């Protein structure tokens, strides 16, 4: 239905435009809340609504003071630093382990493939509050269970430590890496690795020189998913982390719950910018991957 046929009846025309209007409204519902944040973040007052000066486009109604607050406030800066310290390391762990496992999973004869897949995907399915609860209990007092004996308690704790938060976030990011990389590997031609082996390349060389360049778009988009999962995650870090690991979403969460300050809108605008950037990166990667695999971009 790329257009209205010339012989359309009145009812059909009405339905056609009715549907378009409805869809327009739904798109508005999807996008407007995000767009509205942007002008509001330039409010010169500490209000969360448009002031008369803003509506009359008076320059006095606008200011960048909330942005200045964000860049000068030590709480926010610490939160940004913590987020940037945690997310890349968590991503690195998920991507390296996830890619290896995805390659293993896409071989033709893998025993218990379904069960393994279900376990690896579970961090995405289990509600975050449950993962957070379990990690809070277990990380505060880690132990090695030994069947028919009991458990050996380990003499350290992971709650409130950088390592604990990184491990938790890496686990949450893994399903995304597995899904994207296995999807890329579906189109991978295995005769390429055999050809490489035939020409004398060892498994490591084959992996880095032949397989990796081809599946790279999938790996990178999996990595982006893992990164954003960690960067945007609050529930687990609230439970597993301590004040020393306060991340950007955590700071936003406390800001929203206790007393909502307009600085949050400035932060939100910056984050919207980052997501737009991410969206385009992913789209470019997807097209590149399809071109490489000889599919036409849709």
């Amino acid at each position, binding site marked *: 239905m790329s257009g209205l046929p010339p012989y359309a009846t009145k009812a059909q025309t009405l339905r056609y435009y009715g549907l378009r209007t409805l869809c327009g409204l739904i798109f508005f519902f999807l996008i407007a809340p995000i767009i509205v944040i942007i002008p509001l973040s330039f409010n010169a007052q500490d209000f969360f609504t448009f002031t008369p000066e803003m509506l009359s486009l008076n320059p006095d109604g606008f200011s960048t003071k909330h942005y200045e607050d964000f860049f000068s406030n030590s709480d926010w800066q610490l939160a940004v630093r913590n987020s940037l310290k945690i997310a890349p390391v968590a991503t690195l762990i998920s991507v390296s382990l996830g890619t*290896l496992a995805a390659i293993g999973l896409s*071989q033709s004869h893998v025993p218990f493939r379904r069960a393994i897949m279900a376990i*690896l995907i579970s*961090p995405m399915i289990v*509600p975050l509050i*449950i993962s957070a609860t379990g990690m809070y209990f277990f990380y505060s007092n880690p132990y090695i269970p030994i069947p028919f004996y009991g458990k050996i308690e380990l003499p350290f704790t992971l709650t409130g430590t950088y390592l604990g938060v990184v491990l938790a976030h890496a686990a949450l990011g893994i399903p995304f890496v597995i899904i994207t990389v296995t999807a890329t590997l579906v189109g991978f031609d295995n005769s390429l690795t055999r050809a490489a082996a035939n020409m004398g390349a060892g498994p490591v060389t084959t992996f880095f020189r032949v397989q990796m360049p081809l599946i790279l778009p999938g790996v990178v988009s999996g990595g982006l998913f893992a990164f954003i999962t960690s960067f945007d995650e*609050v529930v687990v870090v609230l439970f597993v982390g301590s004040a020393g690991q306060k991340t950007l979403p955590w700071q936003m969460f406390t800001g929203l719950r206790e007393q909502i300050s307009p600085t949050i809108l400035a932060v*939100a605008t910056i984050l919207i910018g980052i997501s737009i950037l991410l969206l385009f990166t992913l789209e470019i990667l997807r097209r590149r991957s399809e071109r490489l695999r000889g599919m036409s971009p849709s």
Partner: protein
Amino acid sequence: MLAADGRPLKASLNRALRRQKIRALFLIAPLLIFILVSFVMPIFDMLLRSVENQIVGNTLPRTVVALQDWDENADTAPDEVVFAALYTDIALAAEYKTHTRLGSRLNYEMTGISSLFRKTGRAVGRFETDVYTEAFQAADPAYADPAQWAGWMQDDNIRAALPQTTNTYDAWAQMIVEEENDIPAEEEPWDFVYTALYADAAGGAALPISVDLSAIEPVSLQASFAEIDEDWIDPDVWQTIKAFSPSYTDGYFLNAVDLLRGADGVEQRPENERLYIGQFINTFVMSLSIMGMCVLLGYPIAWLLANLPARSANLLMILVLLPFWTSLLVRTSAWKVLLQQQGVINDLLVWMRIIADDGRLTMINNQTGTIIAMTHILLPFMILPLYSVMKTIPPSYLRAAKSLGATDWTAFWRVYFPQSVPGIGAGCILVFILSIGYYITPELVGGTKGVFISNRIAFHISSSLNWGLAAALGTILLTVVMVLYWMYDKIVGIDNVKLGG
């Protein structure tokens, strides 16, 4: 048939296959171990905690043993033996400061026990059991000598003759080392050790140095406890302690579904203490409404995207993917700002004279707020699977139906819609799974009415510290989600989960 190296081909192939399997498993193993340790074990730990109940047995070990002989159906408090055990246990627990934790644990089962334990912990040192101490020490100064005590307690014959004293002294000595950082052989034993010694002696045991017991007026521990609080001779308190003395309990699960273990088995909680069934129903109803809203709003969008030419569909797809990629906190703060009483939507409605300035709508901190915000957040998860299913429905089917005389509606309802049902199913389960366990958004925009069971779990972990109940609620929620996940796997297959189109 033989392979090139002379082995049977079948064996050779089997070996190659086995090698391939092992190699695949080697690639998967590091990740599998990582997930098992960092994710699966924590979940199992949570499951275990929902039934684990070692606190009563650990804090009151002697009382639990002594209580085994008490008939909980009798309408009387336990006898002196139990109170003697309780005396030692509480005196030790007060030093370890574990009696308050036990009190708060049992308070979940019976209100008032917490303060009972706290009061008792303070009063237990002032019992008149020092008459035993003084009597023994007066009878022979050796009884006041710490080194002499330590010596006796290493003598196997004396240990065998004085079982209660030995048990109490050992526990006391351990406490002295752990809590006071002193050496037992340099400290005079406390009153409760002498009380145990008297109990042994009164039972006819031979003392290391014989003492004339008839001069000692026995102290009734039952009366001493009753003096602190009448509740100690209330059989209900003892029933609760006995009911929760095994190491594993179903108490948390019963609590999670508004039941309790009373005197005559499992019964409903009193009307004003029933919380969780309502909360579960609330979570279900809200998740269903969010799911319904997502279908209603997502279906037209997915249909439009699937039927537009590729170029414009890709452009419009960005409008779906941008919210999908935007931080959850950003979207939640947007709704918090928009829905406030002094927020943009209310301002707009007042400006358009739809509502009066003093009649501003309350759209936040209630169920409406949660449903609006979560529909917005989860809508892309409905649109994307719907879109990928609709993309595979050939448009020629609709044209064929129409050319055979179907009206637009019949063609849609009888031909197109049934083919899009798998997409609806996949989207619905996905949205339902995601919404039922949501925490952040309801916490921020849900107020008190619009919250989910996950908010109760978080409350019990960080505020009320009733971890067992949190674990039991979590286990129930996890079971529901796992059943849905299993259904999703049957219908869609986990391999087919699509991310971002």
